[in-house]
C-alpha cells in the first residue's frame, strides 16, 4: 500500500488565491496548445522588464523559474536535479536552473516529454529570452547552458540598474537610455523570430494595463496592515503569480480586483488568518522554500502569522515622466525607478535600501519578528541577509530567525531542525513582546 503523500503546500486563507493553481496549470496547457497551433512559445524569466512586450507580440511565455517551484511543490524535482548534476552541473547551482537544465536534458535523452512531468511539462520553446542583469548571474548563463540540449535561438540583453551609492540625477538618464535600446533590440529579435511586426499601440495599451495591475496589487497589500492579518504570506506566494507571469493581461487585472475586494471584506469584518493571532512576522528575505510551504502552517500552529513579505511583492508605485510616451521608454523608466526606489532614502539613512524596506514593513505592519530564508543555491537573494539584519538591528530590536534550506532541493531541508528553530524563535518573540 502506497504511503499517503505528504502535504507540502500551506493552508490558504483567501479564496481568490486558491484559483492560482488552475492559473498555473493553464499557463502550461496554453503553451502546449500554442505550440500545437504553430504559435511562438518562449522560455522566459521573471523581472526581465519584457512581460508586456512578449504579450503584445502574442508569444506564449513559459516561465522556467515557476516550473522549478512547481516541481518542488510536487516533490518531483529530484530527477531533474540529478540529471543536471550528472552532466557536471554543481549541486550549488540555482536549483531553478538545475531543474530546467535537467528537464531539457531528459527531454533530449528521451526524445520526448519526461514521463509524468508536472502539469504536463514545459512545451518545446521556439526561443529563449535571458538577461544580463544587475544581479542573478544565472540569468545570462542559464539559456547559454541549455545550448547543450537544444539548438534554440537565444536572445540575452543587458538589464542593469545603478548601485546603491550612485548619484541618481547623474546616472539615471543613461541607464534609462541603455535599457530602452536593449528593449528595442529585444523587439527586433522577436520580430525576426515571429515574422511579425510589433503593434506599438497594442504595446502601449498592454503597458497601461500592466501599470494598472501593479498599482491595484500594491494597494491591496496595504490592506494587510490590519489586525488581525487578513491575508498571510503563504497566500502571497501564490498571489504574485498573475503579476509576475501574466502582466498586461485582463486576467491578471481581474485577479487583483477580486483579491482586493476579498481582502477588504476580511479587513472590514475583522476576519483573520487564525483565531488567536499572537505574533506577526515578516518574511524578510530569500526565495520561498517551495518544497515545504507547509511550514507556514507550523508557524500558525504556534500563533504566528505573516502579514507581509519582502519576496515576490508588488513593485512600489512609481511615476514615469509624463513626457515619456514611447512604450519601451516607459518600461525602462518604470523598471529603473522601481529598482532604485529606496536608493536615496538609504543614502540619507541606513545605507542599505533593503533595510529601509524592512524598517517600513516592521512599522507599517506591526511586526514582532523577522524570518529570513537562506536558500543554499540562491546567491542572489540569500547573500547579504546577515548584513541587512545587522544594520536593521541598529534601528529596531526585533528577534530574527534564519531558516536554511533551498528553493527547490528538498534534500537541503531538515524538517525537524527547522521546526526546532521555529519553536525557539517563537519563544524569543514571545519574550520580546512581554518586555
Amino acid at each position, binding site marked *: 500500500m502506497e504511503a499517503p503523500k505528504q502535504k507540502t503546500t500551506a493552508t490558504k486563507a483567501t479564496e481568490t488565491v486558491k484559483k492560482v493553481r488552475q492559473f498555473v496549470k493553464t499557463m502550461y496547457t496554453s503553451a502546449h496548445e500554442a505550440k500545437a497551433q504553430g504559435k511562438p512559445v518562449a522560455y522566459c524569466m521573471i523581472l526581465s522588464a519584457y512581460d508586456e512586450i512578449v504579450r503584445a507580440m502574442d508569444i506564449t511565455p513559459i516561465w522556467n523559474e515557476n516550473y522549478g517551484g512547481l516541481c518542488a511543490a510536487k516533490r518531483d524535482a529530484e530527477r531533474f536535479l540529478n540529471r543536471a548534476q550528472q*552532466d*557536471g*552541473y*554543481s549541486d*550549488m*547551482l*540555482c536549483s531553478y536552473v538545475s531543474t530546467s537544465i535537467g528537464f531539457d536534458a531528459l527531454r533530449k535523452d528521451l526524445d520526448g516529454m519526461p514521463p509524468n512531468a508536472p502539469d504536463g511539462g514545459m512545451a518545446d520553446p521556439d526561443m529563449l529570452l535571458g538577461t*544580463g542583469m*544587475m*544581479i*542573478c*548571474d*544565472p540569468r*545570462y*548563463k*542559464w539559456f*547559454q*547552458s541549455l*545550448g*547543450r540540449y537544444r*539548438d534554440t*535561438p*537565444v536572445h*540575452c*540583453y*543587458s538589464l*542593469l540598474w*545603478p*548601485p*546603491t*551609492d*550612485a548619484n541618481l540625477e*547623474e*546616472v539615471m538618464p*543613461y*541607464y534609462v*537610455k*541603455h535599457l530602452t*535600446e*536593449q528593449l528595442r*533590440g529585444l523587439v527586433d529579435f522577436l520580430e525576426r523570430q515571429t515574422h511579425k511586426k510589433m503593434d506599438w499601440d497594442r504595446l502601449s495599451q498592454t503597458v497601461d494595463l500592466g501599470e494598472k495591475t501593479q498599482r491595484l496589487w500594491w494597494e491591496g497589500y496595504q490592506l494587510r496592515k490590519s489586525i488581525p492579518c487578513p491575508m498571510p504570506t503563504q497566500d502571497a506566494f501564490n498571489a504574485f503569480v498573475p503579476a509576475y507571469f501574466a502582466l498586461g493581461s485582463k486576467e491578471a487585472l481581474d485577479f487583483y480586483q477580486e483579491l482586493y475586494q476579498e481582502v477588504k471584506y476580511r479587513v472590514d469584518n475583522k476576519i483573520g488568518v487564525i483565531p488567536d493571532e499572537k505574533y506577526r512576522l515578516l518574511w524578510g528575505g530569500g526565495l520561498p522554500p517551495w518544497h515545504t510551504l507547509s511550514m507556514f502552517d507550523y508557524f500558525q500552529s504556534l500563533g504566528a502569522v505573516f502579514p507581509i513579505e519582502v519576496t515576490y511583492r508588488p513593485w512600489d508605485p512609481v511615476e514615469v515622466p509624463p513626457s515619456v510616451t514611447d512604450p519601451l521608454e516607459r518600461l525602462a523608466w518604470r523598471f529603473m525607478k522601481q529598482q532604485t526606489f529606496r536608493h536615496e532614502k538609504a543614502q540619507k539613512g541606513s*545605507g*542599505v535600501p533593503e533595510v529601509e524596506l524592512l524598517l517600513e514593513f516592521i512599522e507599517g505592519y506591526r511586526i514582532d519578528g523577522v524570518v529570513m530564508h*537562506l536558500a*543554499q543555491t540562491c*546567491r*542572489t537573494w*540569500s*547573500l*547579504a*541577509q*546577515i*548584513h541587512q539584519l*545587522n*544594520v536593521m538591528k541598529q534601528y529596531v530590536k526585533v528577534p530574527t530567525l534564519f531558516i536554511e534550506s533551498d528553493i527547490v532541493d528538498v534534500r537541503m531541508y531538515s524538517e525537524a531542525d527547522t521546526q526546532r528553530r521555529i519553536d525557539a524563535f517563537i519563544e524569543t518573540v514571545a519574550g520580546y513582546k512581554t518586555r
Partner: protein
Amino acid sequence: MTELGSKGDGLARVSELYQNRHRRAKELRSQGKKIIGYFCSLTPVEFLTALGLVPYRITGSALEPITRADAYIETIMCPYLRSCFDKGLKGDYDFLDGFVAPHACDHIVKIYDIWRYYLKTRYTHFVNVPHMSDASSRQFFREELAVFQRSLEKLVGNSLSPHLLTEAIRLHNENRALARELYRLRKPDPPLLSGTEVTKTTVAAVTIPVEESNELLRGVIQEVKECHQGPRKNARLLLYGAELDDIAFTRMVEEAGSNIVMDDVCFGSRNYWHDVEITNDPLDGLITYYLEGLSCPRCYKPRLGTHQEDLENRLGYLRDHAREFDVAGAIVYVIRFCDTFEFDAPDVKDFLQGAGVPVLHIEEDYAMTSPARLKTRVQAFLEMIG
C-alpha cells in the same frame, strides 16, 4: 630607490613581494601615494595609473582560516571574497585609500556594499561593467567610465587628459606583453619556470605600481632565461579557473608530479593575453578590451549557430592554449558557489575533451581545506594521462 624598490632581484624579489605583499604599498603610501584596492580583471586600472594612483589588487589567503567574516556574510558567498573581506576585517587592508569593484558577478555586487559599510574605505566606486558588448552596451559603458573618471578626478584634485590615459594604457599594455613573454618561457619541456613560480610572479606583479611591475617582470624574465634551474620533466597541464591567487593549489598539483605550463585564471593569462588597442579616443580601446577582450565566462558572447559553433566562439582559445603549450591534460578548478564558472564547467570539460585534452573537473573551496583528498584526485588524474 629604496631597498624594496631595488631592481633586478627577479624571483627573490617576487617571493619577497608575494610573502609581504602589502609592504611596498604601505611604503608608497607613506610617501604620499594613494593606494586603490580593487577586485577582478574587469577593473579599468588604466584610469588609476593615469591619475597617479596605485592600483592594488586585493587577494585572499587559501591557508588563513576565516574567523571574522562569518558574522557579516553568509558561508555561501564566494569563499575567495570571504577570505579577502576577512582579511579586511582583521585590518590587513587598512592601508587602502580607496576601493573599486567592477560588476563581475553577484558576489562582487554584494561585497561592494558590505565592504564599504564595514571597512569604511575613504573612496569607493562601483564600475557597472555590462555583460553584453552590443552598441548600446558600449555607449552605456562609455558613460559609466566617464562617471568613474570624474569621481577619480575629484579624489585627486586633477583632471585626466586623453593623452595621460593613453600613456597609462601603453604602460599596462607593456605589462601584458611582458607577462606574455614570461608565459612563453613555459613552452619548452621542461618549462623554464614552474606554475607555482608564475603564480607568485603574477600575484606579486599586481600589488605594485605598473612601472615597478614591468621592472619586476623584466627581472624575472632575464633571470629565468640566463640561469634559472627550472622544474623537472613532468606531465604538462593547463589550469582553468577563477580567482586562484594562492600557490597552495598549484604547488600541490606540481608536487604530485606535473608542471602547470599554462593557465586561464583571473590572476594569470586572462589578465594578460590581449592588449588594449591604442585608439584616437582611448575610451574606444578600453571599452573593447573590457567588454570583449577578457576570456571570462561573465563576458557574454551571443550564441552563433549551433552549440558546437557557440563553444568554438566562447572557448576556442582554450584549445589553442592547450596546443600552443603542448599540454597533456587540463584541470578545471571551480571555486564552490561560483555560479559563473559552475555554469561553464561542463562545456569547458566537453570542449577540451573533444579537442583531445583530458580534463579533471574539481569543484572545491578556495581554501585548501582537504589537501590530501585533492592530491589523491590529482595523482589519479596524472596516472590516467600517463
